[in-house]
Structures are given as structure tokens and as C-alpha cells.
């Protein structure tokens, strides 16, 4: 879950080390136009870092565009790292969700990661999401409303987490199935409806309506 993928080679060893210090497992993506590292597994990473200095094919902006358009990677926070001389050239400064200028410290990287994740998901670095009186602690799997714990099953929790961390976007049932359930299910898209109903029941009247049914499309989380 805490994989970080690194694109580009300039300073990649140092960046890998800093990411590992912050608890990520870094994977380098080959510079042959692929989007995924050879050893990265099938799940989307928690973070992508593009080392833009010296990056030519594909270019930084092309990489960002392809990441954003990818079905599975579109939600990955992207940090673009530039050499200090690169700022004046302007290449890449408007790309990604957050910008870093080399050389950078582990503390700065951590702060930039938190900002990038917040930009994408609306989550702060402590992994606690608050929506009104609803509080979701992503580190401990706990959900509380007005400070009182609400007990979810694992899949209910995973569904709620996905929706809460991707606010205001509509997801089809199929998209929710593949991104929340993975392939460990049978029962088709109705599984999603059934779980949404259970999650709404547990959320209670104040928060149930935050999971909007978008007719003949899917579901959307409103809030944050």
C-alpha cells in the first residue's frame, strides 16, 4: 500500500533512500515509456515522484498526462522534482500535484508528499479524515461519529474509505468493484449496491446522504 514509484534517473538513488526513510517502498520505473515498474505489483502506488531533470522521452508533461489518464493510476499523487536550474526554464513547474526543488531534505519531501496527497484526496498527513462529525482514521481503521465508534466490517470500511478519500467524483459500480474489491468477489455490481446500503445504515441519518446515488451511473461522496 505504501509503494512509491520513481520516474527518471537524476538523483534517483538519493530519492529512493529518502522515501525508504519515510516508510515507502520505492520502485524505479524503467525509462522505456512504461508507466509501471517491473517489480511493482498490480496495485496503484501511494505516490509517484518524477525526477524531471534530464527527462526526455517521455517528457515530464507527457508522463503526468498519461498517469492522469490511466484507469488505475489517475488518483496517484504526483510530485515533480526539478534541479534548481530547471526552475528558470519553466519545464514541469505546472505539472503534477506538488513541486520539489533539488536538493531537498527528508522533511521537505515529507511535507510535499502530505500536500500532494491532500491535493488529490483531501487527506492530511496524519491520515485522519474529518467530514462534519464523521472521523475516519486511516491508520487504525477506526470510524467515529461525534466521537462514538461505529463498527464496520472490512469491506464496508474499505468502500467507505475509498469514497471518502475520493470526494466529489462519481464512480461506476464496476470501477468500485475493481478498485475496492479487487478481483476477490463474485456477485457482480449488485455487491456494491448492497454494501452501500449497509454503509449508509451504519452511518446514520446525518451522514448517510453523503453517499449520493448518481442514477444509472454510480456513487459519489459529498463532503470534505
Amino acid at each position: 500500500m505504501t509503494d512509491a514509484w520513481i520516474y527518471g534517473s537524476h538523483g534517483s538513488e538519493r530519492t529512493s533512500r529518502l522515501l525508504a526513510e519515510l516508510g515507502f517502498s520505492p520502485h524505479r520505473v524503467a525509462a522505456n515509456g512504461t508507466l509501471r515498474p517491473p517489480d511493482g505489483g498490480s496495485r496503484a502506488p501511494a505516490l509517484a515522484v518524477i525526477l524531471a531533470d534530464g527527462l526526455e522521452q517521455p517528457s515530464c508533461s507527457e508522463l503526468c498526462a498519461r498517469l492522469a489518464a490511466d484507469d488505475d493510476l489517475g488518483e496517484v499523487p504526483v510530485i515533480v522534482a526539478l534541479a534548481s536550474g530547471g526552475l528558470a526554464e519553466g519545464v514541469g513547474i505546472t505539472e503534477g500535484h506538488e513541486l520539489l526543488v533539488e536538493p531537498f531534505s527528508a522533511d521537505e519531501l515529507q511535507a510535499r508528499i502530505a500536500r500532494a496527497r491532500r491535493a488529490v484526496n483531501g487527506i492530511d498527513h496524519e491520515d485522519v479524515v474529518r467530514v462534519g462529525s464523521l472521523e475516519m482514521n486511516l491508520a487504525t481503521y477506526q470510524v467515529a461519529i461525534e466521537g462514538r465508534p461505529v463498527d464496520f466490517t472490512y469491506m464496508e470500511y474499505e468502500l467507505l474509505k475509498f469514497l471518502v478519500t475520493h470526494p466529489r467524483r462519481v464512480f461506476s459500480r464496476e470501477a468500485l468493484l475493481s478498485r475496492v474489491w479487487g478481483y476477490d468477489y463474485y456477485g457482480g455490481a449488485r455487491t456494491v449496491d448492497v454494501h452501500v446500503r449497509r454503509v449508509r445504515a451504519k452511518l446514520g441519518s446525518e451522514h448517510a446522504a453523503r453517499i449520493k446515488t448518481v442514477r444509472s451511473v454510480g456513487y459519489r461522496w459529498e463532503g470534505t
Partner: protein
Amino acid sequence: MTGREQFVLRTVEERGVRFIRLWFVDVLGLLKSISIPVSELESALVDGVGLDGSSLEGAARLREHDVIAYPDPRTFQVLPWKPDSIVARMFCDVREPDDGPFGGDSRATLRRVLEQAAGLGYTMQVGCEVEFFIFGPLGSNGAAPTTLDDGAYFDLTPLDVGSDFRRRTIEYLEQMGIPVKASHHEVAPSQHEIQLAHTDALSMADAVTTFRIAVKEAAHELGAYATFMPKPLAAHPGSGMHLHISLFEGDRNAFHTDGTEPLSPTGRAFLAGVLAHARELTAVTNQWINSYRRLATGFEAPAFVSWTRRGGAALVRVPSRRPGRAAGARFELRSPDPSCNTYMVLALILAAGLRGIERGYELQAESIDDQPNGAPRLPLDLREATDLFDDSELARETLGDRLCDVFVANKRRELDDERRTVTEFDRIRYLRLL
């Protein structure tokens, strides 16, 4: 450790859970539980927990038989009704020590049948209307229960024990992830109905099992007693558990049709399969001697193997199609009562329906105005039903010999016990006359 197991371990730690109840059901669908302290949880998740498999065999226990119960972390749920000491539950898969399936586990049996159906591209969805009674505190064993109200069908009784109780029950159910579609006062005094929203068959069987204990807990907290006994009051209708059945191929309701028939050809063949095997499966849908007292008195309790769109007395009702509501195409089976083993019932309904599809069964004509029109009658009592079940090739193929034999042994024992009992009927009928 997968994410699910980490979720369980972390939640136990964060919520201060003291004990975990590992749930399984016996051959009669009665809930059994083994409690483990938190310190044993991690090893239980990995290695399972040993227990005596004869505890799954009901009253016809033969000899001890070691089996291993593996808790299913997907079913981990903190129980809402033990607020002072936090307790959670998980349903278990029961397996042989060599990791083979244990033939006496009806939950695993349902799961196996569902996997077979999934292999054919089908999943079954089930909705459920559960009726039950809530009485005042029970007197000595055998004494008649006391009703708590004189309410009737859909009555909104004043704020009495009944409505307090329904509200509390629904809160518990929702906290357990069992969404309630509706609830109302039923026809008889002290009788209630709660409708559970449709879900897949295994989740529904788990939900019904959970439902029964949640209802009993909620009643107990209010000083009352809830019962799922099919026919507790002679003068009033009994409690049924109507099942709403539909079959999906991917996201398409395989029962839906745009034609004039109420069901698609697949739906008609499935229903034909259920009807063709209804008599031999009655021992499971109505598994107690008392179940047949409900069926005997009519009043929405079916007596014949028939189907209808409108009548009140047929075994199966097919609701009218609603335009634009393809997902809602289904049929309603009305014989089961809420004291059945829901795992076995759903496994057998699905197997019967699939057999109807595979072999192209023809659906019999619709019954009009509740006339059976030559439709066969359902078994009159548990003895007839047990004999039919014992000879059922479908039941043996679906459930396996072990589950069938243990079930039949339980039923024969129950019948023998009754045969030797002098009842209120005997005394009223014969004491003065003879």
C-alpha cells in the same frame, strides 16, 4: 496476514474488544458459539480453533469428531448489545483436520453450492420477510405465553413495549450491517414483521442467523421474550419467513423479461425446478413438528405446490412486473418459517432452480383464485416430509450424505419423542370422553 486480518487485529486493539465469539450453526441452523480471548485471536485466524464436530449434529450426536473452525475475517463485527464489555463475532468455516471440507457444516455447504452456481455465471439474490412473536416473560416450561398487545396488521400501536422493541432491534440490525427495508406489526397480537433488504445468499443466511439473536437480545433487554417458533398461538396465524428469490447473470436479472409473461424463460425454468422439488424440500423449509401447525391453518401459509400472481394462498407468488425495474424481477416463496436452517434452505432452493434450468423443466399453469387445480399438496406433517426428504436425490446430491443423514436422524428422534408424549390435545379430547 492479509488486509482483512490486519483490520480485525487492529480493530480489536483499538476498540478494546475483550472476547471474540466464533459462530457456526448446527444441522438445524441453531447458532453455536465458541468464545476466545483476544490473546488467542491471531493464532485462531491462522491455524483455526479445534472443536468437537458432533456439536454441529443437533440432538442426534453420535460420537466425538475433531474438526477445525476457521474464523472468516470478512464477517468480523463488533456486537452492539454488549456495551459494557466489548465483544465481537466472526462466522467460521468448519473443516476436517486434514483441511478437507467437513460434511456437517451447512454454511460451508451453501458456500459450495454458490460457487457451483458462480461457475455457471449465476448469483442468487435473496430478500427476506421475517415474522416472529414477542411475549411477556415466559412462565414454567410448557405454560402458554402472554401477549403484550392487541395490535393487528400494520397497526401503529402507541409507544408500548412493541414499538420500543422494534426500534431497538432495527438499531441493532443496522449496526450489524443488516439493512432493514420496513417493519410493521403483523396480523396476530404480539406479532411483528421485519423485512431485510436483498443481498447475496450467504450474506442473507448469515443475516438471518444474526437477526434471530439480535431480536432475542433486544427483547430480553426490555424484559420480554422473542420467539421464532412457527405457531405459538393456536388461535392466531403463525410466523413465516417469505423469501424473495432472484438470479443474476453478471448484472442482468435473469428472471426479467420484456414479454407478457411474469418471468423470463430462465426464470420460469428455475421456478419450475423449485416447484418440482418443493415437496421433498419441505422437511428443510419447515423443519419442526410445530411448523406443520402453521401450514395446517392456511392464512397465507401454503398447502399446495402452486404459483400465482395475485392469490394469497399459493406456495409461490410472482409479483407483477414494474416497468423500468428489471432488477426487481423475482418470486416469493412462502412456505419457509423463520426457525429453518437458512443455509440449507437457500442451498436447496438454488440447486432445485438450477436443475430446472439445466433440464429445461416446464412451469405448470398458474393457480387462479387460490384453487390448486390439481397441484400436488405439501406434506401434511413432519413425518411425511422427512420420508420425502430421505428419498430426495436432489438433497443428497446438494447437501451430501452426512448432512442428510444427520438431519434425518434428528427429525426421526423428534418424531419419536412426540409419539411418546401425552399432549394438551389428548387431555382435552379424551380425558372426559373416555
